[in-house]
């Protein structure tokens, strides 16, 4: 049987030390035996390594999320005129809002995607996560959104030290005392503004689950992984698949509760007494997603099929004890290529 020719566009080509998932997604999609895939890379910056790795047949620059959904739609429509994109897979948290917003318009010009809804996207936002956990019966660390440093003592008393003081967008500090908490509050306020999120500290083992929901409440795939080497930015540099039905069940329960459509990652902290706390839900594939293909559940390829409206049989088993080990690799590139992508936005 001859392979079907399709064109898939992928963002997140920043395969750097805190990598975007694009390259891993491309490798998964390319390994699918059903398709003959042409890959269109979509980059934001001209030195994203994925542009130069030979994995993208062609790369286009796209406008930053701050330019708005209209600018993005405009640019993608232009690219689509030339490339006839069948499926698009965005991979950054910050761009998802816009991609979800324009998904129906992309569909109208023939570009399929398989993304969560804005409601699903918002429900797992760190500001709403605790309420979400309460509603659906998940363990989620208690937290409070505060605007005033004077609210700290009462919350600390309730949660008990240590507490985690988190910025609106990024950064978190573990505070052992009120003084440390106040210092963190002022520092994070100065950097990211209000509100500040105060969270209960959970001690345990960190585990990640990459999963794919079909949008009807069914789990297509779920693969748990524990990080073995962690960079100073907290990113996995090596990890191993685990055998643990309770984690697969947790992902399934999350998918069934949210009817999640698309890929996502659960960041879980399992306490000493075995309770799995959901620390964060990333609304897209993680950077280590290629491990799912290596373990026998090719989630990127399955997502492409779902996006194309094809039926996908849920995966039942995966290989336990498969490792991914990341490495750095210096490529040699001529300045003319950098100039072309920088000035023309195409390479």
């Amino acid at each position, binding site marked *: 049987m001859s392979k079907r020719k399709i064109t898939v566009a992928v963002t997140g080509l920043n395969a750097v030390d805190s990598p975007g998932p694009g390259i891993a997604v491309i490798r998964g999609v390319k390994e699918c035996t059903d398709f003959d895939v042409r890959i269109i890379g979509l980059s934001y*910056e001209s030195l994203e390594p994925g542009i130069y790795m030979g994995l993208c047949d062609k790369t286009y620059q796209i406008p930053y999320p*701050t330019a*708005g*959904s209209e600018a993005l739609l405009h640019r993608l429509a232009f690219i689509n005129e030339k490339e006839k994109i069948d499926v698009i897979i965005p991979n950054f948290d910050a761009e998802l809002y816009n991609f979800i917003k324009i998904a129906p318009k992309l569909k109208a010009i023939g570009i399929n995607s398989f993304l969560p809804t804005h409601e699903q996207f918002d429900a797992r936002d760190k500001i709403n996560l605790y309420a979400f956990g309460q509603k659906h019966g998940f363990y989620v660390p208690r937290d409070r959104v505060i605007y005033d440093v004077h609210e700290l003592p009462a919350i600390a008393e309730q949660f008990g030290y240590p507490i985690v003081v988190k910025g609106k967008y990024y950064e978190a500090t573990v505070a052992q005392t009120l003084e440390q908490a106040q210092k963190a509050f002022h520092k994070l306020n100065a950097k990211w503004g209000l509100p500040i999120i105060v969270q209960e500290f959970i001690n345990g083992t960190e585990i990640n689950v990459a999963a794919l929901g079909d949008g009807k409440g069914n789990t297509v795939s779920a693969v748990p992984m524990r990080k073995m080497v962690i960079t100073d930015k907290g990113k996995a540099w090596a990890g191993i698949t685990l055998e643990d039905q309770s984690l697969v069940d947790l992902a399934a329960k999350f998918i069934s509760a949210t009817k999640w459509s698309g890929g996502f990652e659960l960041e879980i902290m399992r306490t000493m007494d075995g309770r799995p706390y959901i620390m964060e839900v990333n609304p897209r594939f993680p950077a280590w997603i290629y491990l799912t293909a290596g373990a026998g559940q090719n989630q990127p390829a399955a997502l492409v099929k779902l996006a194309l409206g094809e039926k996908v049989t849920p995966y039942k088993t995966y290989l336990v004890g498969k490792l991914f080990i990341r490495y750095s690799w210096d490529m040699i590139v001529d300045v003319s290529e950098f100039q072309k992508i920088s000035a023309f936005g195409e390479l």
Partner: protein
Amino acid sequence: MEKLRYERPAIKKLNAGLMNKFGTRTEYAPCTHIDGVAVKDLIKEYGSPVFVISERTIRKTSQNANRAFKTRYPKVQFAWSYKTNYIDAVCNVFHQEGSWAEVVSIFEYQKAIDNGVPGNKIIFNGPEKSVADLEQAVNNGSFIHIDHFDELYDLIELTGRIKKKAKVAIRVNMDTGIYPMWDRFGFNYETGQAWNAITKIMASEYLELEGLHSHIGTFMLSTQAYSIAASKLSDLAVNIKYKYNKAIHYLDLGGGFPSANTLRGSYLPGADVIPSIDDFAEAITSTILNYGYKTEDLPLLILETGRALIDDAGYLLGSVLANKRLSDGRRATIMDFGVNILFTSFWYEHKITPAQEFSQHTEDMVMYGPLCMNIDVVRQSVNLPLLNKGDQVVVHKVGAYNMTQWMQFIAMRPKVILIDMDGKPHIIRENETVDTLRSMERKPDYLKKFKL
């Protein structure tokens, strides 16, 4: 041989990490016409800078807001928020569309009366109302929204003296999960202050409690907060019905809906993050409809939407005065308008587009106003084509607050033009001249002469 079109030479460093501009052409696609009238002609005829208001856009926006609420709820009344833009011609477009008047000072009140708004279709809000102001409002049968106990006692005293009924409502402030909480206006819900005020009104002989009013904030991005406000006002209304067997005639949810402007520091553009008017309508009306009013007791829903109805219709046209380069190498462009007439540039990243065609070459620049004052910055950083002295630009979505909060400082206020439904421009406010200033100044005799 004919000479080629000139463009100023420019180079741009290709940075690895900086934002690319691909696909952002929509941001600076030239805006050459407003409602069919050429920007060039408007500036030629009326000068630069000049404010231009599209009547077509006002009516379209207003009708859309009415549709959003009236298709969801049986009794809806909009009241035009005068402080947002109180040029008579603008107010009257809204009145022609069926809006009442919502005023916050006696001078706005007088404007509404002079415009021909019946007294019983004026809502009088705000913390500043003198006894004389109140008396006028009582005599005209206007709705007085009481802000504090001092005003309440003034009204009780006044109506007792003149023996006339006053139609009143109280402004209620409350926790809707929004920060900051606007608890400086009105009576607080959670502490029982609002109920206390209601009790006093119900006990007074001449005050008729007609409605309950809230105005929870400005540029609100959450529809949920309105739902909470509607629910808390309804709670008061239902309690009034229970305790006094009196049905409240209206709930006034105030204003605060955002326009599509982008707030400074916002990650995504305004147009992408603001809820639509339908989202707000759904949140408010579904809360009231599901609250458990008897059908015959269902209150009239009043909205004092200002910004969201007028911002889009306003444009500011201006011209480049000069280009220069700052000591750090950044390009600076000096415009003939600044924060003196574009007050909103303090909190918006205004969309600014050139008014003539350009090549695809662009540059980042700081855009300054003409004042000799360091804070006169229109945009801290904006990417625009290579503008030359005399080139014209259009600032978008400036209809709200600029034509009321503008200041006469260093430069005079410019003309305001309304483009009517047929594309015909009308001057609706003249520009100020030095005579405008002179007409108000008085020189004591001994200061009339000097020798230098």
